[in-house]
């Protein structure tokens, strides 16, 4: 069932479609299909369809984000989905962005969805911002004059991308990009150890509690350990996010430096 927020979204969508002179029966059919879809999937309208104005524009063929690549990947396009923790994500983005991988979005599992057209690859750079959903648009507008475009959000973290051609020009093109990576998961050493410890604890803890019976010491110890582990995890994530988010010092370009006037 749609929520009040969804109802408002759909009502305003209908008004925008009407303003674009879409026939009334067509509006009814479109909104009906959207309601069916939201009911079936249980997702929120704005999460599923994006900002209202852009979605309405795409339905009417009006100005919105224009997919001038024809709306689909080139024939020799490669797609690569991968996941990383907050200690590794920026390093992976930097490395593979310079090999022509353009992040298009973060999927529902939090994986980066990156694409590269081998025939027309160009280098990308990325940045990460910690920003609430409410302030996301404001931050995006602030970064846009520098050429940054949002390319994916996961809870309170938003990633932005920018073509290196914005500063390097044709030197950012990659006529012969290296082969695509095989790895799909990038975790720092600390997080790998943490995950192993967590997994072992989950297996061992029930046995310990079972054998401990009514011994309050074991229960209290388990609870305290859980709280300490949880706090440590939160502190670790916050520290990782603080380390690389926002503007970063320029990294090693690996490509030709910005040249002066070639003319």
């Amino acid at each position, binding site marked *: 069932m749609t929520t009040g927020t969804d109802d408002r979204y759909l009502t305003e969508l209908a008004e925008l479609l009407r303003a674009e002179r879409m026939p009334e029966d067509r509006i009814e059919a479109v909104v009906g299909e959207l309601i069916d879809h939201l009911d079936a999937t249980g997702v929120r309208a704005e999460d599923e369809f994006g900002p209202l104005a852009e979605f309405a524009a*795409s339905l009417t*063929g009006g100005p919105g984000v224009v997919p001038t690549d024809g709306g689909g990947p080139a024939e020799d396009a490669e797609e690569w989905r991968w996941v990383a923790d907050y200690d590794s994500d920026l390093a992976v983005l930097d490395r593979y962005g310079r090999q022509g991988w353009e992040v298009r979005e973060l999927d529902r599992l939090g994986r980066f969805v990156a694409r590269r057209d081998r025939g027309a690859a160009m280098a990308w750079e990325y940045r990460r911002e910690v920003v609430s959903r409410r302030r996301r648009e404001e931050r995006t507008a602030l970064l846009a004059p*520098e050429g940054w475009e949002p390319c994916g959000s996961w809870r309170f973290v938003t990633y932005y991308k920018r073509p290196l051609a914005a500063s390097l020009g*044709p030197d950012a093109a990659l006529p012969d990009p290296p082969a695509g990576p095989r790895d799909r998961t990038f975790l720092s050493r600390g997080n790998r150890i943490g995950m192993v410890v967590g997994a072992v604890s989950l297996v061992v803890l029930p046995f310990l509690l079972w054998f401990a019976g009514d011994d309050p010491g074991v229960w209290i110890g388990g609870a305290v350990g859980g709280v300490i582990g949880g706090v440590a995890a939160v502190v670790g994530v916050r520290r990782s996010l603080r380390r690389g988010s926002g503007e970063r010092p320029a990294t090693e370009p690996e490509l030709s430096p*910005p040249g002066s006037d070639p003319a």
Partner: protein
Amino acid sequence: MLTSLWFYLGMATDRRASWLKGVLDLLVLGCLTDGESYGYEIARRLDGAGLGQIRGGTLYPVLNRLETAGLVAAEYRAAERGPGRRYYRLTPEGERQLAEQTAAWDEFHATTRAVLAGAPTTATKGTRE
């Protein structure tokens, strides 16, 4: 479930995208007739004209092609804050190409409009086989 909606949506956006794809290099050259500009400003101007948002992944390959072809010249200027910008300006060859291609586009547009309006047309240089 959403098949017919996506079909409708796809037709509208694909057609518009195809139109724009065919004329984007010309539009970018046109944005430089008043003087030099940079990527974000060009994209903003096109958006403001009602052509929609042109993403960097679409705009910069066009600018690169124009630069490689010698139709625009570029200069990177560092900024006090931020990463600096690459400024583009028309070359004399770019100005010549812009004038020539604008005339060709006008001719094509006039022919298309006449056909869509159902008016009798005469074959023009750009459409005759």
